[in-house]
């Protein structure tokens, strides 16, 4: 595994994304929603920054397992950890977080899941890394870094709270 983003750059990236998001949101009170698992870690970082700046917000997590369109294709089903959204999403601004955007299929499933809970007035997509190779017309609104990859490569985002360090890594599929 090779390191692509160091701790310092990682922090600056999140800080810049946070300010971009605050500017976009204006005076609305957003619902921050992380996609299991690493999108939740990213959403928590943002939630902490919102708290520091005393900006009001709600928080939730979603598990997209049951909305995946590949369960039928006999791909591996990840362990389901559950959706927790105890907020009425009708007419709210939802900020959706994921660590890496790739094919766009995860985000599509997440959007479907969100729509099951209500009709948000707006959904903003925030991702830390865009590794390209999209299969659906879905793009992040706020992006940390664009890192084009080959099909056999994988991006790993680490968060110090869970992995002991901040950073973005690239490795093969097997790692």
């Amino acid at each position, binding site marked *: 595994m090779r390191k692509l983003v160091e701790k310092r750059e990682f922090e600056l990236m999140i800080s810049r994304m946070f300010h971009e998001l605050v500017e976009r949101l204006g005076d609305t009170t957003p619902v921050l929603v992380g996609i299991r698992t690493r999108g939740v870690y990213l959403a928590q970082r943002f939630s902490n920054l919102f708290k520091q700046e005393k900006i009001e917000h709600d928080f939730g997590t979603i598990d997209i397992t049951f909305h995946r369109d*590949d369960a039928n294709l006999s791909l591996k089903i990840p362990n389901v950890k559950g959706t927790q959204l105890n907020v009425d999403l009708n007419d709210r601004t939802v900020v959706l977080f994921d660590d890496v955007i790739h094919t766009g299929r995860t985000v599509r499933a997440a959007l479907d899941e969100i729509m099951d809970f209500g009709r948000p007035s707006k959904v903003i997509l925030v991702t830390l890394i865009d590794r390209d190779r999209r299969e659906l017309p879905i793009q992040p609104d706020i992006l940390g870094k664009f890192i084009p990859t080959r099909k056999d490569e994988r991006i790993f985002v680490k968060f110090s709270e869970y992995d002991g360090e901040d950073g973005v890594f690239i490795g093969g599929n097997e790692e």
Partner: protein
Amino acid sequence: MSIAGKDVFDVDVLSKEDVLQIFQTAKEFKEVLQRPIKKVPALRGKTVCTLFFEPSTRTRMSFEIAAKRLNADVVNFSSSTSSLKKGESFKDTVKTLDAMGIDLYVIRHREPGSPMMLKKYTNAIVINAGDGIRAHPTQAILDGYTMWEKFGELKDLKVVIVGDILHSRVARSNAKLLKKMGADVTFCGPKSMIPMKAEEYGVRISHSVKEAIKGADVVMGLRMHLERQTGGFFSSLDEYNEFYGLTPEVMKETSKSSIFMHPGPMNRGVEVVTELADSENSKVEEQVTNGVATRMALLYLTLGGDNGANS
């Protein structure tokens, strides 16, 4: 280990890990059932056929709702309005249905072993929804789930099953599943209603409700199967109620946090009195909700993909 593609003839086919995975998945589906939109597209494009040769409200509806909540298509086969009436054989009927592209059958039939017979004629997955007095695995799973949800685990849980054990597929499947998960199970009923060789299930046998339910965590009443009886098992329903009827008074002997369960439909005034059936300890309605969630989990896991930890 994986549940994908398994035929669920009885709980024997499931390992302890499989059962826990079903419980975990059911917990997530229970959350889905509380949403404004109670559907997820996990089984889009799959077709489930329910084959019921015996009357049923909750099991059939429960399977149908479970399949629909997962976006599968459901077709119901009813023997009384089918070509079986014209003399078409069971085999030809199944072959015909198969040709229409069924992915999973849910079967209930009064003959023990009928799900295995169905499997001879199809490549689709078969789930047993009750075959005579032999087995009713999905009822055992939903009962086990109800206990797991309340107590956190089934190990060392004291469960007493009271009533007509002899004619009860629910008791048989429950005993197997609960013993597998490490619970302490007692069959309690009149001598005439305890099956021969009941000890082989690894359960305790008791003929006194009072003794059996001392310190019990779960008391499960069984329906008196009047339709499966040929008579002579007890002198009268009143007398049965006198000795084996479950009441709030009897429940006083159980542990503090104990619950009352019943697979339904209840014969109020026979095996249980209304005061207990509708009491706070009663999980009867919760069992019905859990039936949908656990059947969703079972359909999802049998029809879904491989169950690896990674995507």
